[in-house]
């Protein structure tokens, strides 16, 4: 529907207050439409004029913080990143992200996802702890090596992929697309040497083997991270590892500072290093 013909919009919201309700229920609200209105703007309007107790998470309002993941018209999306007009002009149906327990109204309990994320050690693991704690320089990495994980590093942990995953819909022990995608992000980082440590989880039943490439995680990802791709690439690495064909890369060395050469007069001194 075009913005010109839209004057009012109906929101149908899944409400649940653990202090009052035994099960979630639906409530409808009609609010005036304003040009450029996002689903999140509408929620704020409802809170201001109809339901002051309506609860949800949001922060940045620009698709960066990953707080406002919700099920909007049957699809997991960021409320701040979704224009009301892209939903076809009918009722805006908003529910909390499925596959997570509901804390209240549109607030999902994301703790299990972050627990799994933590278990997969989403950080650079190296033997040289001294260098990591007291760095003497940057780890060397080529532009091509950076490209191998850059896409996956854009993840904002909103949980939309977990809400869309069919396996995670029944299997609480499956790690899920976000933690697995992030494990691959670090496995494919040449500065990292943690493949064997992460494999302790990944080779088991919580690993990528429960992914059957339905692809929904990648379809709903608001940042184009493509967790399904990361998971399939990770499976290849793990199969190669089982066949003893996996190439262990030595974690990237510290880049040596140039010791020779003379600075040109017109180039100013570099700022002091931050690490």
């Amino acid at each position: 529907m075009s913005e010109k013909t839209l004057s009012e919009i109906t929101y149908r919201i899944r409400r649940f207050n653990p202090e009052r309700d035994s099960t979630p229920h639906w409530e409808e609200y009609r609010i005036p439409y304003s040009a450029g209105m996002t689903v999140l703007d509408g929620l704020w309007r409802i809170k201001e004029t109809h339901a002051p107790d309506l609860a949800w998470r949001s922060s940045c309002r620009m698709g960066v913080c990953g707080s406002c993941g919700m099920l909007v018209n049957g699809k997991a999306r960021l409320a701040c990143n979704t224009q009301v007009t892209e939903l076809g002009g009918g009722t805006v149906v908003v529910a909390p992200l499925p596959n997570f327990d509901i804390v209240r109204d549109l607030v999902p309990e994301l703790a299990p996802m972050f627990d799994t994320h933590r278990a997969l050690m989403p950080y650079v693991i190296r033997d040289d702890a001294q260098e990591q704690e007291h760095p003497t320089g940057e780890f060397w990495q080529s532009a091509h090596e950076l490209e191998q994980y850059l896409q996956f590093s854009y993840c904002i942990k909103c949980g939309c992929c977990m809400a869309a995953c069919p396996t995670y819909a029944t299997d609480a022990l499956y790690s899920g697309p976000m933690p697995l995608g992030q494990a691959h992000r670090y496995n494919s980082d040449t500065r990292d040497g943690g493949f064997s440590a992460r494999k302790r989880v990944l080779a088991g039943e919580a690993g990528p083997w429960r992914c059957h490439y339905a692809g929904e995680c990648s379809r709903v990802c608001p940042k184009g991270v493509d967790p399904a791709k990361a998971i399939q690439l990770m499976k290849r690495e793990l199969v190669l590892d089982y066949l003893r064909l996996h190439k262990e890369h030595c974690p990237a060395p510290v880049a040596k500072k140039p010791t020779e050469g003379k600075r040109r007069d017109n180039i100013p001194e570099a700022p002091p290093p931050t690490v």
Partner: protein
Amino acid sequence: MMRDQKLWTWHLAAGVVILFLLGMHMTVMHLNVTVPLKGLNPAGGHPIDWANVVARGKSAFFMVTYVVLLGAALFHGLYGFRNILFELNPASWLKKAVSMVLLLCGLALFVYGTWAAIAGFSLAKAM
């Protein structure tokens, strides 16, 4: 319990084996008119006619491929089924029980099917 990294790799390898052997089996059995392969239904008529079954049964190649297909399909199918059951999030003890039951069923059917393939081969050879 075997790790999924290993089991899934074998699941995939079994799938490749099945693709060729079951593809051949289906071509012989159900595409016998649209894709007639010479010598596989020598008696003419339907592929499951006894004369054709005996003719194929005399071949050691068929006997071996039946056993390989049996093993690959049992592993591929039962591991896939186990995956589906495990994704229903049963209790840990139930997972162990399911694994054990499927393993025993698979082994029993493999032994029985292998006996049938070898006995069928011996019977056909004797005719």
